[in-house]
């Protein structure tokens, strides 16, 4: 007596499932053919704004960024008459400029969205006109409503989520391509229910009431039932076709719209790429806090000094000409509110004047730089994959620089390290190993006088072939046949027949979601058991030239808990058989071992052999079902299938119930080929100081063998294996492992310049192999800590049989306990959680569909691209971005300090000698463009050097380009340079006739030249673009100064012309620039020669080699 004991043998209880729907309270009722205005229409709107709402909404969105609020607060502060530092127009300008640029960009994007929305909404679809008999009239997509019956032709895009009612295929089969939805290019099979298909073919129209779940974003799930002719038919994910998919290889299909417009699954899934923050950006916050403290300190200093000055001169203020406290026409004080208030006002003004020290424009510059870097990464030919025709893609635009700091690489195995192109290599059938495969031409079948050949031929074992062809009465041959029948039938493969150039020949292409299944189906075909056709109800298999029809009575899909799938097949000889295939661990649990112990043992031995060869293994079994058994199962199956809620669990328990006492047929070994260049790539990554961990769902032996074949594991490594079934034993093995790592640590030498793994320095390398079962007891318990300790001491870690969430757990183990950056790379849906967990997620455009790519931050075609991505682009991005941030801090600090020194000579009243326009243009124009261009284009080392010396990558891992020391150094340089810029003219012009505007122009120009020279001195690769921007910016500054001083209404009118006419100006400019740069130059010269970084030596090697080449070419010609 199971949970599905036969209770009522008639129809499934309609009220029961009705109740289920009501209990959930979440269902929608749709009358087929009756458009319902109750639900959302099919018009989609991806555009964010309308003409009316654009301004308020866009401003609202923009001001959600904190930096803009800071900007706004400063601007508002400046509008108070007492505090106004800059003129109103001038102070609003930068904010207005940034807002305007962003608004224009947003508006442009939105207009494009509006256009595409309009195009989408105005597409036409054939919709059944109500109250007519089967007349389909064109209707715009936006007018389609839930309940409409829509007819779609081949290659047309589906306008909404629809339940299939009927298709051109008599069995109700339809194929769709879901590339727009999840990126998978293989065809998916969808079915119309027999009931609706029949009803339609009978009178060309379907009527009924459909109950389905409320709209949700699960693309792979759908539960509904349909009342038709008083019957209740269950509907599942295979009965629904989704908006955005294309109908393929099906002349027409008719469906009823269940979700429309914004409620369709594709629209609900329409969320942007994940947003992560880069390491540098997080670290930058620390420096921002320091700068804020500096800002407040400067403001307090200025305001307190102002207060002291006022206090000392309190009694003089009335008659002092430059203060003139009193307004004699009114007799009151003018704009003077006592010392306390004056201090406060001065403080606010100081905030406005010195706010630039926190470089808000840096965030905008960083975004632009990342955009440029992303462009160059995408354009790199070395990251282009010929086989999948995919470019490198930056999906997350804000973590480019993290690529240069990776310490841990977590890699999926299948499809990432390997090609995920499976090839059937060997079989063990009934305890006999058939693995001496020879290339074969494959077998063909004759259909309608045409020759149908499977697209791929598999190496076949001659002995096995002989056995199959010669004697079918033999018991052994029967088992072999059963084995191949199981391979051909127990899958979800759809055979597609393709035309070839020869009209007499056709190709059979097996389309399916699992590459293993494809390999098995091709294998069966090569041995003469050719799957020819699949519909929802039956499969046609050509068994050694004899075409037979097998009814598929039920299918228990593969799930990761059971790790197996099964079909229940009605055979031509009227027997009912259950075919099961699955992972050996799950299969040996359900095998009837008592009957054929030898067979099981032999198979186990073969499995061990296959997996140690690096092959993926599957065990195949079968059982003949007796009539009562079958009926019991069928009843339960039907009941479960019509349930709307909880169907998945019901089906799982039914599957578990029937999959028992299995008679083992055999096992298969499938080769999973390594991708190109994987061992070399792993070697490079490891040399670069990264730890490569492999997380795979495969079993231990397979994982280890792949580890060997990709050179992650070598024979001189000491392997620590943790493979236990209880918490206690896990604890014990972890403690043992820890003890072993300690031994190695003791043996290792002390005092190496860089932290080297204990295991590596002592000569022997430790490799840790952990099993998924053990991880259950370790992850998220107190044993985690010990695993972490062991794992970080080992240079290689392999985790096998891990579930998707465990993958994420392992990533989190490292991510949460260290500051090291983690990168996860994978290609399948099971890698999504790991990709999202890691600091950087990389998706491989592979065979397993687009889910990993959709979740990733970067996507590319091959695992080996990781090497140029990290070692070259990551390195560049990191060092440029680190430099750019520091430089921006430095340049703004220099300018603000120059302003600050001047305030000391204005009785602390925050006058700026530099015109307000120059102050505002300083960050926007005078100094911003070169740093952006340098951030995009400069390269410290060439690609070839970085690839030749992978250890150069360590610079990023050790935070060499951005750290507190460098920040302090930059601030000291800013201090020195500001002193030089300010005080050299100060002493030169002390007690002279110099005017404020003239001196201000000199200070502005000197600051701009000095900070640009600093940049120029640090640029490593001068190409013409960088030349244009660096020198062009200085020229632009001069032009701006001339323009500003040509406006007669400004006090500085004519000042620059006047001061530039003096020899002293030029002498001062020269000495300022030289004096300001001398320390930087001297430090640079000293450190580059006497304490050279690896990068510096790399640069020398580059130059040296280039020199050598020139010399050798010369000597060749002589």
């Amino acid at each position, binding site marked *: 007596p199971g949970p599905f004991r036969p209770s009522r043998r008639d129809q499934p209880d309609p009220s029961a499932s009705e109740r289920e729907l009501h209990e959930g309270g979440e269902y929608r009722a749709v009358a087929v053919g009756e458009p319902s205005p109750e639900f959302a229409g099919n018009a989609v709107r991806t555009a964010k704004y309308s003409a009316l709402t654009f301004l308020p909404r866009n401003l609202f969105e923009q001001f959600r960024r904190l930096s803009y609020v800071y900007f706004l607060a400063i601007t508002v502060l400046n509008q108070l008459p007492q505090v106004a530092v800059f003129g109103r127009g001038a102070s609003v300008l930068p904010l207005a400029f940034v807002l305007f640029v962003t608004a224009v960009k947003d508006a442009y994007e939105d207009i494009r969205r509006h256009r595409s929305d309009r195009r989408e909404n105005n597409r036409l679809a054939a919709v059944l006109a109500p109250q007519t008999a089967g007349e389909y009239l064109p209707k715009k997509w936006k007018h389609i409503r839930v309940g409409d019956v829509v007819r779609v032709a081949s290659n047309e895009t589906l306008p909404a989520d629809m339940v299939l009612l009927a298709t051109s295929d008599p069995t109700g*089969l339809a194929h769709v*391509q879901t590339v727009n939805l999840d990126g998978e290019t*293989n065809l998916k099979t969808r079915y119309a229910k027999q009931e609706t298909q029949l009803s339609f073919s009978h009178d060309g129209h379907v009527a009924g009431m459909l109950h389905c779940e409320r709209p949700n974003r699960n693309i792979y799930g759908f539960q509904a039932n349909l009342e038709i002719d008083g019957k209740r038919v269950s509907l599942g994910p295979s009965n629904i076709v989704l908006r955005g998919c294309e109908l393929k*290889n099906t002349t027409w299909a008719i469906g009823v719209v269940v979700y429309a417009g914004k409620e369709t699954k594709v629209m609900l899934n329409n969320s942007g790429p994940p947003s992560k923050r880069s390491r540098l950006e997080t670290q930058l916050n620390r420096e921002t806090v320091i700068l804020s403290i500096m800002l407040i300190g400067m403001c307090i200093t200025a305001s307190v000094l102002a207060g002291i000055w006022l206090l000392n001169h309190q009694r*003089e203020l009335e008659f002092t*000409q*430059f*203060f*003139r406290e*009193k307004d*004699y*026409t009114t007799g009151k004080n*003018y*704009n003077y509110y006592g010392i306390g208030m004056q201090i406060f006002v001065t403080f606010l003004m100081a905030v406005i004047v010195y706010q630039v020290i926190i470089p808000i424009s840096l965030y905008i510059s960083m975004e632009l730089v990342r955009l440029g870097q992303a462009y*160059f990464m995408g354009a*790199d*030919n070395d990251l282009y994959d010929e086989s999948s*025709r995919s470019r490198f893609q930056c999906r997350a635009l804000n973590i480019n620089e993290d690529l240069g700091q990776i310490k841990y690489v977590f890699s999926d195995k299948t499809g990432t390290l390997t090609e995920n192109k499976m090839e059937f290599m060997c079989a063990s059938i009934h305890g006999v190993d058939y693995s001496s495969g020879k290339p074969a031409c494959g077998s063909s079948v004759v259909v309608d006088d045409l020759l149908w050949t499977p697209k791929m031929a598999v190496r076949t074992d001659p002995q096995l072939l002989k056995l199959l062809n010669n004697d079918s009465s033999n018991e052994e041959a029967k088992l072999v046949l059963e084995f191949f029948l199981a391979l051909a039938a127990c899958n979800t493969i759809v055979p597609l*027949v393709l*035309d070839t150039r020869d009209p007499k020949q056709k190709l059979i292409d097996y389309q399916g979601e699992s590459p293993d299944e494809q390999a098995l189906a091709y294998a069966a075909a090569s041995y003469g058991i050719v799957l020819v056709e699949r519909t929802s109800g039956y499969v046609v298999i050509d068994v050694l030239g004899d075409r037979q029809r097998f009814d598929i009575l039920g299918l228990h899909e593969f799930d990761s808990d059971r790790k197996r799938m099964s079909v229940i097949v009605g055979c031509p000889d009227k027997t009912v058989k259950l075919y099961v295939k699955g992972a050996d661990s799950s299969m040996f649990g359900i095998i009837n071992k008592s009957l054929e112990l030898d067979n099981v043992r032999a198979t186990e031995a073969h499995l061990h052999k296959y997996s140690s060869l690096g092959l993926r293994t599957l065990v195949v079994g079968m059982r003949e079902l007796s009539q009562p058994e079958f009926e019991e199962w069928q009843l339960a199956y039907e009941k479960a299938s019509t349930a709307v809620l909880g169907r998945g669990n019901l089906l799982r328990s039914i599957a578990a119930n029937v999959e028992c006492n299995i008679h083992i047929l055999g096992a298969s070994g499938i080769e999973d080929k390594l991708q190109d260049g994987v061992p070399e790539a792993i070697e490079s990554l490891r040399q670069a100081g990264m730890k490569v961990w492999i997380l795979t769902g495969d079993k231990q032996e397979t994982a280890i063998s792949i580890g060997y074949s990709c050179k992650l594991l070598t024979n001189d490594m000491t392997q620590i294996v943790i493979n236990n079934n209880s918490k206690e034993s896990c604890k014990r093995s972890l403690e043992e492992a820890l003890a072993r790592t300690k031994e190695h640590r003791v043996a290792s030498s002390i005092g190496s*310049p*860089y932290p080297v793994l204990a295991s590596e320095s002592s000569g022997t390398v430790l490799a840790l192999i952990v099993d998924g079962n053990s991880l259950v007891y370790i992850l998220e318990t107190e044993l985690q800590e010990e695993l972490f300790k062991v794992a970080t001491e080992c240079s290689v870690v392999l985790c096998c049989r891990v579930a998707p969430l465990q993958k994420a757990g392992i990533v989190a183990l490292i991510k949460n306990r260290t500051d090291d950056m983690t990168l996860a790379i994978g290609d399948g849906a099971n890698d999504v959680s790991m990709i999202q967990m890691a600091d950087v997620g990389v998706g491989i455009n592979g065979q397993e569909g687009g889910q990993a790519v959709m979740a990733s931050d970067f996507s590319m075609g091959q695992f080996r691209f990781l090497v140029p991505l990290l070692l070259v682009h990551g390195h560049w991005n990191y060092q440029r971005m680190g430099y750019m941030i520091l430089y921006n801090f430095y340049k703004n600090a220099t300018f603000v300090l120059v302003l600050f020194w001047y305030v000391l*000579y*204005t*009785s602390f*009243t925050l006058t700026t*000698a530099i015109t307000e326009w120059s102050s505002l243009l300083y960050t926007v124009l005078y100094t911003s463009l070169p740093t952006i261009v340098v951030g995009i284009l400069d390269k410290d080392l060439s690609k070839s050097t970085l690839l030749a*010396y992978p250890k150069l990558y*360590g610079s990023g891992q050790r935070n060499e380009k951005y750290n507190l020391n460098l920040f302090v150094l930059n601030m000291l340089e800013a201090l020195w340079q500001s002193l030089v810029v300010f005080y050299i003219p*100060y*002493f*030169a012009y*002390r*007690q002279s*006739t*110099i*005017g*404020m*505007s003239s001196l201000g122009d000199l200070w502005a120009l000197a600051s701009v030249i000095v900070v640009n020279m600093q940049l120029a001195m640090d640029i490593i*690769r*001068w*190409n013409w*673009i*960088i030349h244009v921007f660096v020198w062009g910016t200085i020229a632009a500054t001069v032009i701006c100064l001339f323009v500003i001083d040509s406006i*007669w*209404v400004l006090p500085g*009118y004519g000042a620059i012309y*006047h001061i530039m006419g003096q020899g002293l100006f030029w*002498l001062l400019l020269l*000495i300022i620039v*030289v004096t300001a740069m*001398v320390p930087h*130059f001297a430090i640079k*010269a000293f450190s*580059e*020669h006497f304490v050279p970084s690896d990068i510096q*030596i790399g*640069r*020398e*090697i580059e130059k040296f080699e280039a020199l050598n080449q020139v010399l050798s070419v010369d000597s060749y010609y002589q």
Partner: protein
Amino acid sequence: GDPGLPSSAMYPLEMEGNSNPKTTNKPKYSKFTQQELPACKPLLTPEIVIAAFALIGALFVPIGLASLHASRQVVELVHRYDASCVPVDDKVGFIQNSRTDKTCTVTMTVPKYMKSPIHVYYLIDGFYQNHRRYVRSRSDKQLRYKSAAHLTSDCVPEGDTADHAPIVPCGLVAWSLFNDTYTVRVNGVVTQVNKKDIAWKSDKNNKFGKNIYPSNFQKGRLIGGATLNESIPLSEQEDLIVWMRTAALPTFRKLYGRIEKDINANDNVTVVIQNNYNTYSFGGSKALVLSTASWIGGKNNFIGIAYLTIGGLCLSLAMGFLVLYMVKRRNFGDPSNLSWNR
């Protein structure tokens, strides 16, 4: 004619559509996209470092010597008179009293031959012409256009008179115009101090209107400084124009006029000063400056010393680096210096 295979005949080669070799999206190759633009990669080799420092030194020392020489050629006489010209203790009361005689005579002996033109400056210390209240207290539009005479909002409290007539020129800057006058005698002979062309031409031509005449100026309760002749247009009021070029620093000199006659060594220069300007209320000081000019401006040793210092520093850095490079040699571009090879 197998009814079991109805749909198979219509399968086109659709799923192969994306493998059409023509539709490649391989990035186009260019030196720009592959970041291979020809580029110069300067390295700070010992030769370059030493050459750079030596070059700077070699350039700066002569410049320093030349500037020092030029500065030494300048003859400058500075005489502070703010204290000596007020005989009483209540200096502010003295200066604010319009009836006291403020004439004051100072005598200087010229130590060296002074070649004309000899610039006459007044030097004020402690006057913050760059004070925020002060700098902004002016109306530039009013100075140029008659129609803008009423634009005095920035000039409060020196914007309008008590009966709301606009003051031209308004604001504290104009109001506080310096009004000491100097009469110069060389060896007892009155010598003309030319006050023409002491202001910038650009200011006279474009900033101050030729048809703008002072009005309501210096009529308030508190007198800030000089009064202006209401029959002379602003563009000709050169003292005002000079004054309104606000000084950058609190100690500044402004051009008063030029003596276009040479003065010999040991000549006696007597200056009769009308000591009108109130620097006493804020504790400032005043001085009279007679100075010749050179190509680096007035007397200014700083620039020469700075050049010599930096030049000397660079030369010694060049020497220092030379020694360092000799002491600690390092093979240029030697992979064995990489941190993991050491």
